Structures are given as structure tokens and as C-alpha cells.
């Protein structure tokens, strides 16, 4: 005979203000098998938990229902409580009467009635719960970082510092990411390269860090502690071990029409190239789209000139298989495409540029060697107009609904640097709001306005058009309530940023969730900002949401500390709520194998008795419980109903539905 105890939490007034907890307590007492029911102000508090423990012991409870907040919040807490009182933790069910009830209802009558139904549902399910025991798995003591920008670099250095091996997979030929493209960084105006490149060098020299540049993630299998990852090392056509980075090949390459991605396509580079002087690894790569030898078979100059004999035109993509205990996703961002913003004339005017392009034009290693010259005629621009929020905070559907967060600060930076270096330049900034929260940020912006006399105009720009070689910026000045047109030499668009498009592919491979703007979703906006819903995967940098460098670095270190915490464990407790196969019903059709995102299902030929002393061999599904995450995809795909999940069986779910429908 089962003996069930029901515990109803007030959650302060969170629940008790909308749900009559006394009535719920009385109502559940009438449910079958319920021998004990009690309500309490904070069930999750030490006293509340003690109350549950005492009740379990005194009433010899065989199962516990806690009516409280979402199981994502405190299921683990109450399972632990039950375990401490000697009850199997999987004999605890949570009825969510907060998020799914008190928070969304205003009427006490309705909410109380619903809370009773939810409690009854949990009790009904609990009657079919069975004690479950979690298995244990080992942990591979190595971390994978996807993306070699500042986030990835910082996370890698921190994890390596704790003594664990780290692999960085970077799709470009060098690590460094977007930060390497920047000129100076706000609010202190350090040169980006000066603070980034030492970290890049550290990565290269740290023996715990292994870099796979010009590589991409091909496939991810496994689960927390035991990921199996295939990495595609794209053919560089240059032997990484032999290349010395001398650059002779670049000087001799006759095909010089490739666009220089590092300089935002503002100038050209040879078909064989090293992205920039401080690239790590400092190894050349051949662009197969541009290389004459690879395209036509005629040339081979670089091979002839290479003293190290590093050039190998026959190189092929290579697949490397590695195992990891944890994964950090740090895939970064790109400025959005401006196809939807014809009004700014970006496509038609060479002198309408994005902020990231301006970074390159101001950078000493950029196409103009750091002298600010406008792209069309390489003259000094005398009037520069910045337009903020291009594609950010845009609810029209053309751009992004969110604030890109970094643009106010970098625009102030650009304006200030230009005024500092070229005091004869007139600088205007169109803005909607200037948003500068952050340590020393507002002071920084005020310096631009007060000390450097940057002309900030509150208002939006309607149109940019070319008139006799001048870029006419037509906008409104809201404070003076007038329409203005500023004839400019250079227009800089503070373009919204979006997650690098590769993130969708990565998210699919890692089965992590992604929001409508392609940002990866953290496990909890406030309390689990670097974790993912998928155990063992952590987030760092702009792939999770817009961030500046200081924030990115903090988040990367946070992700690293989570990884270190995970890798420090020798064993991980698994989830016993996994799928299993009824071999008498399974027909071996392979549907479940196709939908399993974790590769947990394989097939075996097994011999079965068929009566009359005979046996037959049948193909049946076998679930690896260590790999299964209990998502349930197989159970709904299986046409014969052979797949079921411990703790969430069809029977239990049917019983819940019956309890809800019962009046």
C-alpha cells in the first residue's frame, strides 16, 4: 500500500497570494494513497526541508509530492531532501503551482482549483513511479573551445592554467577573432593588438593548449563528460610544421585579387597569405578560389620560392577525432548585412562605411597604414558623420530588435580618436539614445562631447545621398525640432551585430537552443548565464548576447571556471530517466535510431522464443543508458510503442492526463 505525502509551499506570497493553500491541503488529503498533507511558507528553506524529512520518517511515506515552483528550480533540492530521509529521490514529484498557476492567474478561485488539479496530477503520476538509481560515468579531462576570438582565448588560457588540456577550434586561419581587427579599445584606449596578441602567443606556447585553426566542427556525439567530436581540418595547402611564416610566398604570388577579409574587404591580398602580421599560427594558407595552381594547374611559383618546402598542393581536408569532457561555444559575431538599409547608400557609395571598416582604416596595420583616408579617393575626410543604431533596436523587421550594446561606446571612441588625431575634422553623431552603463563609460562619452567637441545630434537619419561628390546626410534634429542636411566626406554606420551564422550549425550539432535572433540560450538568464540546457556545454561571448570586450572576457573566465569544476570531477552521476526498449514489441524499423540526437540507439540481432520450442532472430533497438539524455524523441517516433522512458512512461503520462480530465 502506498503512503503519499503532499507538501504545499506558499513561496512567501508568490503562491499563497493567488492560491488558497489551505484549501489545496484539504483537497489533496482526499486523494487516494495520500496519508499526509501540509503547507508551509518556504518549503525550500532549511525548516521546510526538515518538515519533509520528518514527515517521511514519521508517516513512513513511500512517495512525496511537492506543490511549489517549477521543477527546474527546486526538483533537485527536494530529491536530495527525500534521499536524506531514506527515500529514493525519484519517488518525488513536483506540481508546479507557481509559474504554471499562481503567476499567471489573478482570480483566487480559478488558481486554487487549478492548483488542486495540478497536485492531483502529480499524485496520480507518483502512484506509478518506481525507484530509480542513477549510473555513473567517467570524465574525459579535456575541454573543447569552439571559436578562437578573445572569448575562446581567455577560456582556453584559464582552463589550461588549471592544468587541463584544451583544444581551440577556429574556422579562420588564425586565432584572434574580431578583437584582432580593432584599433583601440574603450574606455581606456589601449591598442587592441597590444593587449590581445600576448594572449594569442600564450595560447600558442602553452603546452596544454592545442589549436586547430582553419578547422570546423564536423560532428558531435556523446554527452557531458564524454563528448566525441570530429574536427575537419580544412586543407591549407601549406604544411603547418614546415612553414616559417617568412612571407616570401605572399610576395611572389601572381594572383593578388583575393579580397582581404581581415581588412573587411577594403583591399586585396594574394592567393597565398597570412591574415595579418601577428597571426597565430604564423603560417600561410592558400585560398583555393584564387590560387592559379589549384584552379588551372599552371603556376606553382610559391612552391618554387618556398625555402622551407612547406607548400603542398595535394593537401586534403583531414578529419580528426577527439574526446572531450566539456565544450565552450564562443563563436562570436559579425556586423549585419546592410541589404535592407538602402537609405544609407552603403552599397552605392564607397565612402559610406561600417564601423568595423573604420577600425581597419584607422589601424596602423590596416590598408591605409593607420592614416585616415576615405576609400573613394584616399583623401582626408574633413566632415565625418556617424549614424548610430543602424539595424539595432529596429522593430520594423529590417534590422534587429535588440540593442547591439557596443555601438554607443565605439562611436564615441571613433569620434574622439579622430578629433584627437585630426583636430581640423568636423565630427557629427546622429543618435537615438546614448547608452553608456559600465565602469568609466559615461565619463568616456562625456569626454567626447565636452573635451573633444563632438557634435551629438539627437535624431535619426532618413537618407544619405551623393551630391557633387559630397555625401548629403539628411536627418532630423529632435532637440531643435528641425530637419538638417550635413554635407559629409565620410559616413560611418554603427552597424548592428549578429551572431556569426556558423552558430546555427553548431547549435544543431550540440543540440543547444537558439533564440529568434540566433543568440544561444543560456540555462537561466540570471542564475545560469554561462550554462546551457545541454549539460557540459557552456557559452562565452557574443554568441550568447551582445557584449563588449571586458564583459566577454569575464564571461569567458566564468565559463572556464564551470569547465574546470566539471573536469575536476572523476565521476558524473547520470540521469536514470532514460529510454528503454521493449524487445518483444520492437520490430527493428530504425526510426528511433534516426531521431536520436545523441546517438544512443543501436541495433542488435537477438534470438527470441516464439513458442513451440522454436526461436527466431530479430533485429531490436538497444539503448545505451549512459548516452541517452531522456529527451523522449524515440518514444514518440516508435510506431509500436516499444520505446518508453523511466520516470516518464506512457502509463504515467496517461495517468496524468486522466487526472487532469477527471472532474
Amino acid at each position, binding site marked *: 500500500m502506498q503512503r503519499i505525502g503532499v507538501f504545499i509551499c506558499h513561496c512567501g506570497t508568490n503562491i499563497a497570494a493567488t492560491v488558497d493553500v489551505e484549501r489545496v491541503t484539504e483537497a489533496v488529503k482526499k486523494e487516494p494513497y495520500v496519508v499526509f498533507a501540509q503547507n508551509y511558507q518556504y518549503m525550500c528553506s532549511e525548516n521546510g526541508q526538515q518538515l519533509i524529512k520528518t514527515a517521511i520518517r514519521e508517516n513512513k511515506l513511500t512517495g512525496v509530492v511537492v506543490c511549489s515552483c517549477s521543477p527546474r528550480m527546486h526538483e533537485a533540492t527536494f530529491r536530495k531532501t527525500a534521499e536524506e530521509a531514506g527515500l529514493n529521490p525519484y519517488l518525488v514529484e513536483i506540481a508546479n503551482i507557481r509559474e504554471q498557476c499562481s503567476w499567471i492567474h489573478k482570480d483566487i478561485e480559478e488558481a486554487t482549483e487549478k492548483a488542486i488539479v495540478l497536485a492531483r496530477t502529480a499524485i496520480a503520476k507518483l502512484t506509478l513511479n518506481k525507484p530509480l538509481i542513477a549510473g555513473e560515468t567517467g570524465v574525459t579531462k579535456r575541454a573543447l573551445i569552439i571559436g578562437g576570438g578573445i572569448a575562446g582565448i581567455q577560456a582556453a588560457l584559464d582552463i589550461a592554467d588549471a592544468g587541463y588540456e584544451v583544444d581551440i577550434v577556429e574556422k579562420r586561419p588564425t586565432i584572434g577573432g574580431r578583437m584582432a581587427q580593432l584599433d583601440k579599445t574603450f574606455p581606456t584606449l589601449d591598442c587592441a593588438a597590444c593587449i590581445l596578441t600576448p594572449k594569442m602567443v600564450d595560447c600558442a606556447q602553452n603546452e596544454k593548449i592545442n589549436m586547430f585553426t582553419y578547422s570546423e566542427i564536423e560532428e558531435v556525439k556523446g554527452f557531458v563528460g564524454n563528448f566525441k567530436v570530429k574536427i575537419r581540418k580544412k586543407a591549407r595547402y601549406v604544411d603547418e610544421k614546415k612553414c616559417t611564416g617568412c612571407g616570401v610566398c605572399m610576395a611572389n604570388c601572381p594572383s593578388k585579387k583575393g579580397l582581404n577579409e581581415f581588412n573587411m574587404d577594403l583591399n586585396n591580398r594574394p592567393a597565398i597569405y597570412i591574415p595579418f602580421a601577428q597571426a597565430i599560427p604564423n603560417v600561410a594558407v592558400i585560398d583555393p578560389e584564387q590560387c592559379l595552381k589549384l584552379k588551372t594547374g599552371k603556376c606553382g611559383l610559391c612552391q618554387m620560392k618556398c625555402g622551407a618546402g612547406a607548400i603542398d598542393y595535394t593537401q586534403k581536408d583531414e578529419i580528426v577525432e577527439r574526446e572531450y569532457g566539456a565544450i565552450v561555444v564562443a563563436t562570436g559575431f559579425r556586423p549585419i548585412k546592410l541589404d535592407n538599409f538602402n537609405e544609407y547608400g552603403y552599397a552605392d557609395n564607397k565612402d559610406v562605411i561600417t564601423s568595423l571598416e573604420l577600425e581597419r582604416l584607422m589601424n596602423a596595420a590596416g590598408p591605409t597604414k593607420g592614416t585616415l583616408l576615405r576609400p573613394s579617393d584616399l583623401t582626408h575626410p574633413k566632415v565625418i558623420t556617424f549614424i548610430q543604431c543602424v539595424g539595432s533596436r529596429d522593430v520594423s523587421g529590417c534590422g534587429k530588435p535588440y540593442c547591439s550594446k557596443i555601438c554607443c561606446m565605439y562611436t564615441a571612441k571613433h569620434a574622439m580618436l579622430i578629433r584627437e588625431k585630426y583636430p581640423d575634422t568636423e565630427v557629427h553623431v546622429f543618435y537615438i539614445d546614448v547608452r553608456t552603463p559600465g565602469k568609466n563609460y559615461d565619463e568616456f562619452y562625456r569626454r567626447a562631447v565636452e573635451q573633444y567637441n563632438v557634435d551629438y545630434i539627437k535624431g535619426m537619419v532618413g537618407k544619405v545621398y551623393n551630391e557633387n561628390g559630397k555625401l548629403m546626410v539628411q536627418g532630423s534634429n529632435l532637440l531643435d525640432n528641425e530637419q538638417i542636411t550635413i554635407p559629409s566626406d565620410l559616413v560611418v554606420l554603427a552597424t548592428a551585430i549578429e551572431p556569426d551564422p556558423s552558430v546555427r550549425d553548431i547549435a*544543431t550539432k550540440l543540440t543547444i537552443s537558439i533564440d529568434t535572433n540566433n543568440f544561444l540560450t543560456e540555462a537561466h538568464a540570471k542564475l545560469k548565464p554561462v550554462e546551457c540546457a545541454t549539460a557540459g556545454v557552456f557559452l562565452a561571448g557574443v554568441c550568447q548576447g551582445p557584449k563588449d570586450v571586458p564583459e566577454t572576457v569575464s564571461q569567458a573566465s566564468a565559463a572556464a571556471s564551470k569547465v574546470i569544476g566539471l573536469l575536476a570531477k572523476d565521476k558524473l552521476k547520470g540521469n536514470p530517466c532514460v529510454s528503454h526498449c521493449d524487445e518483444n514489441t520492437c*520490430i527493428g524499423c*530504425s526510426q528511433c535510431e*534516426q*531521431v536520436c540526437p545523441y546517438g544512443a540507439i543501436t541495433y542488435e540481432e537477438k534470438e527470441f522464443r516464439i513458442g513451440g520450442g522454436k526461436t527466431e532472430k530479430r533485429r531490436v533497438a538497444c539503448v545505451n543508458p549512459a548516452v541517452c539524455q531522456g529527451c523522449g524523441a524515440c518514444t514518440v*517516433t516508435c*510506431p509500436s510503442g516499444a520505446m518508453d522512458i523511466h520516470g516518464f512512461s*506512457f502509463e504515467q503520462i496517461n495517468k496524468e492526463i486522466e487526472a487532469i480530465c477527471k472532474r
Partner: protein
Amino acid sequence: MQEKLESLMQELALKKIASGEVDRVLAWKKGESYFDVSPAIFKESFDGFTYNAFCGANLSKFLVEETKKEGKVLVFLKPCDTYSFNQLLSEHRINREKVYVVGIECQGKLDINKVYAKGIDGILDIEETDSELKIKTIYGDKTVKKDEVFSVKCETCKSKKLVVFDEKIVLNEMKDNKEKRFDIVEKLESMTEEERFAFWQAELSKCIRCNACRNVCPACTCTNCVFDNNKSGIAGKANADSFEEKLYHIIRAFHVAGRCTDCGECSRVCPQGIPLHLINRKIIKDMNTNYGEYQAGETVTPLNPIVDFKKDDVEANTVVGGKK
């Protein structure tokens, strides 16, 4: 024409058995009258071996059991049956090595009730031309237009391609009729919710839960069907209330979704004349619009749009009339 085909088929079957290449033959056997045709195994005697305009039955499902037995079986498959055969191969339900597939010509099969409705009875023989049937009956010769007496599954034939065979016997050109395949589905879609509900209410309330649709369906090969499994929670509920008949057909449609080749056997065998294939065809149409054209059984693949995930698939929450 049919006779020629039939004798060629029998000739081949006898030859293959004589050479020991196959052990037995799965084909159709004539019963008491011309249209009374059933699937049968022939081994020594070929008495009653037939292939005529009423051989609508899809033989592929029988191979699930047949290939568990010793020896090789020769099977005759019409174009649409070959799709089912491939689908069963995809699901590892048939041992391909134990089957010799002979693809055969099909000019569309007939529904005896539609023939009766034309006032024709006592059929002795049928001679087919492109569009007409010359029916020899005990009351004399009659002529009917072919498309007026087609079995419902042949009215909109999706394909006359033999997608798998070891050998084929095709004497005349075959023509499909797939242009109109989704017309009825579109008609159903254009109804209001109430009209559509009323339509299905009227159709499905005729169901007597004889399970014929399930038993004939080549996609329904579970040994322990959910409707027979007490643990599933949906077994044996046919008579509880009228809603549960609908549930039976809806559950069945979802179970075969992505795997249904649209062979139309469900509607052919339904003794109550319910157009069951329309539920499946609606799902096929939706899959085509949302995930791109797909025909189950065209190739041997374990992936169908329902179990396959592609990054450019429409998001579940944005599937409204197939718009992304």
C-alpha cells in the same frame, strides 16, 4: 493483353522454380468468380494462378513473414507495390536476399462495386484497351469507360515506375495519373472547420473497427500493435464512444506518417468505403510543402522528412500553410 501477361508471368514462375532458383511464388489466385482474387503462395501446383484487372492487392507486406521462412520467394509487384517493398526494406522488415522481385505491368485496377453499379454482373472475362473495358458476361458483352470503374487507389495513380525489380514483364506503356492526386485534399482544405469536421464525422462514424485497413497496410507491420497492446492505453477502445473511432484512424495516420507510400490499400479494403487514404495523403501533401517533395519508398533510406532534421527545415511554430 492480360492473358498474355498472365501466361508470361506463370511461365517465368515455373522456370524459376524448376531451376531451383526460387522455392515458391507469391502471386494472385482466382476464387469462384473472375473478380474474386486473393494473394496466394504457389509451389507445386499453379492452379488458379491469375493476373487480371482485379489484382489490386499489394503483395509486398506478405514478404515480412515469407522472408522469415526457409528458401527464396518470387514475388510479382506492380509499380505502386514496389514503393511499399522499398519502404519495408528501409525499415529492415524484409530480407532482400530471400526475394526475387518481378516487376509487372499495371494499367490500373478496378473496383467490383463500381462495375456492379454500372449494372454489370456475371463477369467472365475482361479485355482492356487504353480507355475502355470490354466485359464479357454471362448476359452478353458490355463496354464501360475505364476511369469510371477504377479502384479508388488507381483513380489518381502516383507513379507507374517500377522502383525495384530483379526482372520485369512489361508489354505496354503505362501511364500515371498523378496530376489530380491532391485535388481532393485541396477540396478538403478549402472547407471550413465545421464542414471538414462534419465530413470526417460522417465518414469515420461508418467505421466498424474491423482493422482491415491496419492489417493490409504495408506500413503497419508491428508484431505487437498499440491497438492490441493493453499497456499502450489505447487498445480495444473501439466501442467506448464515437470519438475513439476517429482517434483510431488519426493515430494510425500519424504512425504511418513519412512511411506511407500512398498505395491506397486502406481505402481499397475498407468494407465501409471510408476514403482513409485521404488522411495519409493530406499528411504527404503537408510534408511536401513544408520539407520539400518526398515520396516514401522511392529509394531505400531510413530517413524520411518526419525523422530527419535539416537545418533549413521550417520551424515547428512557423508552419502555417507551409510558409517559412
